[in-house]
C-alpha cells in the first residue's frame, strides 16, 4: 500500500503473503473461470513449476488458464481483493526465472491467447494475442513479403507476450532493433482490473512513453492481452560471411573495425572454439574447427547493396587478420552458417548435463578483457565455459557447463555467473542485455543500481501496481535483499546499503 512516509518508501522488504488462503482463492476463482481452466492439484501444477531456467522451481498455489480478457479481468480483481500474488506466463521459455511461480500465488498462463487477431499488409501491422509464437507472426506475414524482425533464438517456441515482457532481442537486432523498436501498442489489464490501451496504430502517443516502460517490465506492471507489432519488408537478399580467426581478441577487434567502417550488418555474431566444437558435432555447420573464434557477419538488402557491403566487410576482415573467409553461395549455405549459431544452447545441453547461460552486455572494446577474465574464472571455479556473443551489440552469452548431480557444482556455476555479471557492470556494461533479471540476476541488480535508484524502481512499479501483487520478488531487489547480499560480499571495506534495517 502507498506509504505516507518517504523514509519508509517502497522496496525495503519482501511482501509477506503467508496469510493467503488456498481454499478461498480456489473458491473465488472457480466462480469466474470455466471448468478445466483452473488447476490446484500438485500433479497438475507440476508442468508449471519452472520456466527455461530449470534450476529454479516452485509450485504455485493454483494455475489459471483464462481464455478471454473478461476472465483475466475477473481473476485480477479477485487477486487484488484477496491480496494474492499473480505471475503471468507465456510459453515459459524465459531464461531468468521471470515466470517462476509464487508459492502463495496464482500462475496466470496466457497460453490460450493464441490467435493473430488482425494482419494489415498495407499498414504493415499485426495484432496478436500474447500467447502467439514469435515465428507464427512472421509466418502469417510471409505471403505479403513482410516479417516481424526480432528473432530470439527460441522464436519457434517463445510467445510475443513474453517477448514484450522481456524486451527480447535476437541475432538481427543491431540493424532491426529489439522488441521495443518494433512495437506499436499493447492492451493489458492492471492488478486493479482496469483495461489499459498503451500506444495505438500511430507511431507515438500523448503523455509519457508507457509503451517503452511496459516493454521489458517482466510482468511487474500489467498483464498483457493484446500486442500490435510492426512488420517490415523482407529483404530481397541476405548473404552471410563466415570468418575464422586464430585469436579471440583479434576477432573482437575485427568486430569494432567493421562498425568503424560505417557498416551496420544485419547480424554480427561470434563464437569461441569450445562453442564451435560443440555445435559442429551437433549440426555439422561446416565451421573450421581449428579456429580460436569465428565471426558470422550477415548483409541484407537489394542485391546491389549486399554485393557492395559484402565486399567492404571482406576487405575489413582480411585487414583484421582473418585466417579464412567464406561467403554463403546460396540460401541453403547461409542457413547452415546460422544453424550452428542458433543451436549453441542445445549443443551445450548435449555435451554437458546442465548449463547456465549468462547475458551480460559490455562495450565492445572490453571484449578481450572479459574473455581473458572468463578463462581465469574457468580455473577458479573448476568449470568449463563456452562463449557465444551477439558481438555487434556487445551482448555476451557465456554458457557455463556443470553437472547439478555433482556436489556443489550448481553453486560454483552460480558464483561463476555472478562474477561474470559483476564484471560486466564494472566494465561499463549491464547484467542483462535481453534475458531479463527475473529471479536469477536479482542480487546482481544491487551491484548495478544504488539505493535511490532501486527505490525509484519500486515507486514506478507502484504507479501501476500499488499493492505489489504482480510478480513480487522479481526483477527489482528489495533493499533488504541488497543489504544481505552486500553483507556477503563486502567490497572495498565498506558495506553497501548501510542505512536500512537488516533481517
Amino acid at each position, binding site marked *: 500500500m502507498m506509504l505516507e512516509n518517504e523514509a519508509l518508501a517502497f522496496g525495503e522488504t519482501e511482501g509477506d503473503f503467508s496469510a493467503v488462503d488456498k481454499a478461498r482463492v480456489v473458491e473465488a476463482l472457480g466462480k469466474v473461470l470455466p471448468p478445466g481452466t483452473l488447476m490446484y492439484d500438485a500433479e497438475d501444477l507440476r508442468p508449471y513449476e519452472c520456466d527455461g531456467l530449470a534450476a529454479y522451481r516452485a509450485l504455485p498455489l493454483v494455475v489459471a488458464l483464462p481464455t478471454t480478457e473478461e476472465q483475466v479481468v475477473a481473476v485480477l480483481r479477485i487477486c487484488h481483493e484477496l491480496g494474492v500474488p499473480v505471475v503471468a506466463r507465456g510459453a515459459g521459455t524465459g531464461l531468468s526465472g521471470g515466470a517462476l511461480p509464487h508459492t502463495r500465488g496464482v500462475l496466470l498462463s496466457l497460453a490460450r491467447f493464441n490467435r493473430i487477431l488482425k494482419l494489415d499488409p498495407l499498414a504493415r501491422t499485426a495484432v496478436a494475442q500474447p500467447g502467439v509464437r514469435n515465428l507464427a507472426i512472421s509466418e502469417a506475414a510471409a505471403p505479403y513479403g513482410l516479417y516481424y524482425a526480432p528473432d530470439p533464438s527460441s522464436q519457434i517456441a517463445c510467445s510475443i507476450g513474453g517477448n514484450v515482457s522481456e524486451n527480447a532481442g535476437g541475432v538481427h537486432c543491431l540493424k532491426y532493433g529489439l522488441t521495443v523498436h518494433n512495437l506499436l501498442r499493447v492492451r493489458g489489464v492492471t492488478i486493479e482490473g482496469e483495461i489499459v490501451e498503451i500506444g495505438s496504430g500511430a507511431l507515438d502517443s500523448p503523455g509519457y512513453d508507457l509503451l517503452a516502460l511496459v516493454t521489458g517490465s517482466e510482468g511487474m506492471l500489467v498483464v498483457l492481452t493484446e500486442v500490435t507489432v510492426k512488420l517490415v519488408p523482407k529483404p530481397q537478399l541476405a548473404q552471410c560471411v563466415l570468418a575464422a580467426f586464430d585469436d579471440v581478441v583479434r576477432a573482437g577487434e575485427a568486430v569494432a573495425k567493421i562498425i568503424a567502417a560505417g557498416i551496420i550488418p544485419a547480424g554480427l555474431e561470434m563464437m569461441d572454439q569450445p562453442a564451435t566444437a560443440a555445435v559442429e558435432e551437433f549440426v555439422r555447420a561446416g565451421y573450421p574447427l581449428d579456429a580460436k573464434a569465428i565471426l558470422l557477419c550477415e548483409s541484407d538488402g537489394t542485391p546491389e547493396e549486399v554485393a557492395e*557491403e559484402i565486399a567492404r566487410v571482406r576487405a575489413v576482415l582480411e585487414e583484421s587478420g582473418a585466417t579464412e573467409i567464406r561467403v554463403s553461395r546460396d540460401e541453403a549455405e547461409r542457413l547452415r552458417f546460422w544453424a550452428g549459431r542458433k543451436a549453441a544452447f542445445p549443443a551445450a545441453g548435449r555435451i554437458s548435463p546442465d548449463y547456465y547461460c549468462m547475458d551480460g552486455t559490455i562495450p565492445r572494446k572490453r571484449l578481450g578483457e572479459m574473455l581473458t577474465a572468463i578463462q581465469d574464472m574457468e580455473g577458479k571455479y573448476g568449470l568449463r565455459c563456452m562463449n557465444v556473443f551477439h558481438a555487434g551489440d556487445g551482448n555476451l552469452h557465456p554458457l557455463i557447463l556443470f553437472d547439478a548431480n555433482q556436489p556443489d557444482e550448481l553453486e560454483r556455476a552460480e558464483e561463476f555467473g555472478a562474477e561474470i555479471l559483476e564484471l560486466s557492470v564494472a566494465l561499463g556494461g549491464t547484467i542483462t542485455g535481453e534475458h531479463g533479471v527475473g529471479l536469477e540476476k536479482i542480487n546482481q541488480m544491487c551491484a548495478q543500481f544504488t539505493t535511490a535508484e532501486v527505490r525509484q524502481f519500486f515507486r514506478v512499479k507502484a504507479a501501476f501496481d500499488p499493492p505489489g501483487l504482480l510478480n513480487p520478488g522479481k526483477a527489482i531487489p528489495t533493499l533488504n535483499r541488497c543489504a544481505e547480499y552486500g553483507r556477503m560480499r563486502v567490497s572495498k571495506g565498506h558495506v553497501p546499503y548501510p542505512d536500512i534495517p537488516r533481517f
Partner: protein
Amino acid sequence: MTTIEKEWAERVRAAAAARTPLCLRGGGSKGFYGGPLAGEPFELCANRGVVAHEPTELVVTVRGGTPLAELEELLAEKGQYLAFEPPHFGPGATVGGCVASGLSGPRRANAGALRDFMLGIKLLDGRGEVLRFGGQVMKNVAGYDLSRLVAGSLGTLGILLEVSLKVLPRPVAEATLRFELDEASALRRVNELGGQPLPVSATLWQDGVLHLRLSGAEAAVQAAGARLGGEALAPAAAQALWTAVREQTLPGFAVEEGGVLWRLSLPSTAPALGLPGRQLVEWGGAQRWLAGAVEAQAVRARATELGGHAVAFRGGDRAAGVFQPLAAPLAVVHRRLKQAFDPAGIFNPGRLYPEF
C-alpha cells in the same frame, strides 16, 4: 557529483521544500511547445560538454546543456549522425531539450524516433537525488526502461544531467524524387512503398506533390531511383527541402495570427483528414500537419476516429491543454509517475498536462 550537480541538487531540494515551481530552460528554442511556461526560470545551459564518444561503440554521452549543433558537428566529423534527425527550432537548441521534447524529424518513420535511440540517462529528480538509468550499451534490460520514459516528458520528471544516445553511420548516398500526386494516391503510394524493401528515408506530401527521399548504399539508392522514376532534385535543393521540413520553415507550416498548427499522429493508412486548412503529410502518412483556424474539438475528434491523437503544436490557447486528454486509468498512472519522480510537483508544472 560535479560542482554544478551539487549546486543544482541543493537548489532542487530547496525548491521542493518551499514548493517553488521551476521552469526548466535549455536554449529556449522549444518554449512554444507544450503547456504554458510557469515557475522560476532554471537555466540549464551551463552543464555542457561531451562526456564520451566512442565511434566504434556507436554511443555518445553528453551533458544536457550541450548545444545540439555542437553534438551534430562532432558526430559528422566521424561520419556519424543522429538518425532520428531532431528538429532544432532555434540556434540555441540543447541535447537535453531535444530529449525532453521527444521530437523527431523526417527520418522518423524509417529510422526510428528519438526514444528508439535513448540508451541511458543521468537524472536529477525532484528529491534532489542523482539517478542513473540505462547505460552506454545497445542492449540493456536491467530495471525498468526509465530513460525512454523521460524522453518526451517535457522536463516534468527531472533535470537531464547526461544522456547517452545511440548514433549511426551517415548514409553514403541520398537522392530525392518528386512526383505529382493527389492526396489519396500519395497516401496509398507511400504505404505500398513501405511494404517493399526500398531505402526510403523520408516522405512529404503537400499541394499535390509527393517528395520521396532515398538513403543508403550508393548502389541501393541508384537502383531504387531507377525503379521509382519521378523527377530527381538537385542535391542542394533536396537538402534545403528536408532541412526546411525538419525546422518547419517551409511556408506550409506557417500559422496566421490566432491560428493553430496541429500535429496529427495517425496510423499511416488513415484516409485524408477532410478538415479545412493547409496540410502537409510526413512519415509515410503517419504524421499530418494541419494549419488553420480549426475548432480544437473537431481536430481531436477526427484524430481519435482515425485511431491516433492530435497535438496543438504551435499557437492557440495553451492553457486549455495542448495534448490529447488521457483515458482515465492512464491518467491515474501518469499522476502516480509524476509523483514518483517529483513529489513536490516543482518541475515544469502544466507543461505536459494542466493537472500536473
